[in-house]
């Protein structure tokens, strides 16, 4: 029934593999040869300054923007031939969750099952249970019958997350899910993501800052000008560095170092990464 949480064997292909992914908008390169593997079950953050290509990488991984060259494989299948879309839960970066016609929170959340349900079928008990569970997970069960327009920005963001949960996918892709969500709900969402990780889900997040997700993130990829500038353990901001709007310093391997691939744990030098504060 559910695509969720298949057993991870030793020969399971990575949830996402990008091979020399290039993306250009109107001839301007945004992704400049990104090759990463994201193994099944990993919780990974994509970090980087504005314009570094982190959202584009995520959109390219899902085929929302086309590659100019390179390849994306999703669960071992080239994107073009990938059909198991019910395994994917996508949370877009949006200010609002609604269209121009009113829609209730439940309607939006239930629409997340579109890839999992057949045409001309009614919602099964399991479908409805999944919607209720998603609503409870983000703490909006009591708002299910309200129009999304009546919700605050942070609540609408949680609706989008619940929509991704409702299809019971095992692979999540979230584009700044914490944007506009207040501190208390950020902690609640971090708990949700930790729970997904514990259940064996793959979670890829584009983030501005690690914030309350710091303890959940297993791996951080930092993009700079469309290239991978750091790939390894999550940078750990402490004290003054944890304040938004400052400059981070992250260890990363020297790109010219021939032993680069093996240096994940031994940073060769430091790069400066600006993490703009949210206004």
């Amino acid at each position, binding site marked *: 029934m559910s695509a969720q949480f298949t057993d991870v064997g030793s020969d399971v292909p990575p949830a996402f593999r990008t091979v020399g992914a290039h993306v250009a908008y109107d001839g301007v390169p945004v992704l400049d040869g990104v090759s990463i593997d994201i193994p099944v079950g990993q919780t990974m953050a994509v970090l980087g300054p504005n314009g570094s290509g982190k959202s584009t990488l995520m959109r390219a991984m899902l085929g929302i923007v086309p590659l100019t060259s390179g390849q994306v494989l999703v669960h071992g299948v080239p994107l073009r031939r990938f*059909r198991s879309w019910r395994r994917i839960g996508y949370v877009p970066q949006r200010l609002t969750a609604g269209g121009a016609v009113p829609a*209730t929170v439940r309607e939006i959340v239930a629409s997340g099952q579109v890839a999992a349900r057949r045409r001309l079928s009614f919602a099964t008990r399991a479908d409805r249970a999944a919607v209720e569970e998603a609503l409870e997970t983000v703490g909006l069960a009591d708002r299910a019958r*309200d129009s999304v327009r*009546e919700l605050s920005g942070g609540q609408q963001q949680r609706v989008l997350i619940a929509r991704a949960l409702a299809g019971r996918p095992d692979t999540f*892709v979230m584009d700044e899910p914490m944007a506009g969500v207040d501190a208390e709900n950020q902690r609640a969402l971090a708990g949700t993501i930790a729970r997904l990780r514990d259940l064996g889900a793959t979670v890829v997040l584009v983030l501005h800052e690690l914030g309350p997700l710091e303890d959940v993130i297993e791996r951080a990829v930092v993009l700079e000008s469309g290239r991978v500038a750091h790939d390894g353990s999550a940078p750990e901001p402490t004290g003054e560095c944890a304040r938004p709007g400052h400059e981070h310093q992250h260890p990363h391997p020297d790109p010219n170092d021939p032993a680069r691939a093996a240096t994940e744990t031994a940073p060769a030098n430091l790069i400066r990464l600006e993490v703009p504060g949210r206004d």
Partner: protein
Amino acid sequence: MTELLQYEFMRRALVAAVLVGLVAPIIGTYLVQRRLALLGDGIGHVALTGVALGLLTSTSPVLTAAVVATAGAVLIEIVRVRTRTSGDVALALLFYGGIAGGVLLIGLTPGASNATLVSYLFGSVSTVEEADLWVVGVLAAGVVGVVAVFGRELFVLCQDEEVARAHGLPVRFLSVLLAVTAALTVVIAMRVVGVLMVSALMIVPVAAAQQLTKSFRVTMLLAVAIGLLSSLGGLTTSFYADLSPGATIVLLALAVYGAAVAAGGVLRRASGARSPRAHGPGAGVPAGTMPQTDRGRVKP
């Protein structure tokens, strides 16, 4: 009312009005959600070229209009996606091309003049023939069928195209399907209200309904009710008061819209006074036709 039904032409007109009142708001709900409210108008203008082609070639104008309008709908999707033309500019191109093509072809038709076009511009529900009714009936069934099968996917597409892609939905196919379905709806409504007002029956009932609703499904159902009320009420009124049927139908729908705006305001004030929830940032803000104003907070 019984007097109305004694006339053969009125019986046919009423059937046509029911089909239009039923089908137009259904597809209109998706168009409004996708912010393509004027797509119906653009396709209506193209349908005029189809009508003229039918008159020129002595085939059923409704049939040729359906074919040409469908081609126009596919064309607009291609123009929107493949060229650097935004949706509204692509629509404008369609408006001009459709009208110009219609006038040009009518000029080539022996025995027809621009006056022939007028019945299609403003509708002539009283001249609906039985053959028209069959075409309209089949098209209406087709539109309802498309929504029944693809409704869930169309909802996601119209809500957020990017999310539709991330669900692996066939976005291009669904976009064309929606445009073609809108084109068929236009042709259905053309005989009743005319191509100039064709999209009024797709959009106005939806605009009225969403003043009063919270859910997509209820909006669609209420819009259909308003569409049926307007088309049947307008047609009956025009029969007794000797008015233009198309114009009466559209004005009645607009009157319902006005009443819905007023009623919606009263309802929201009433529920705002009672509901403890209404102290949030969105409280008391009318959920009108401009919903995308962000009332959320970014900071805690």
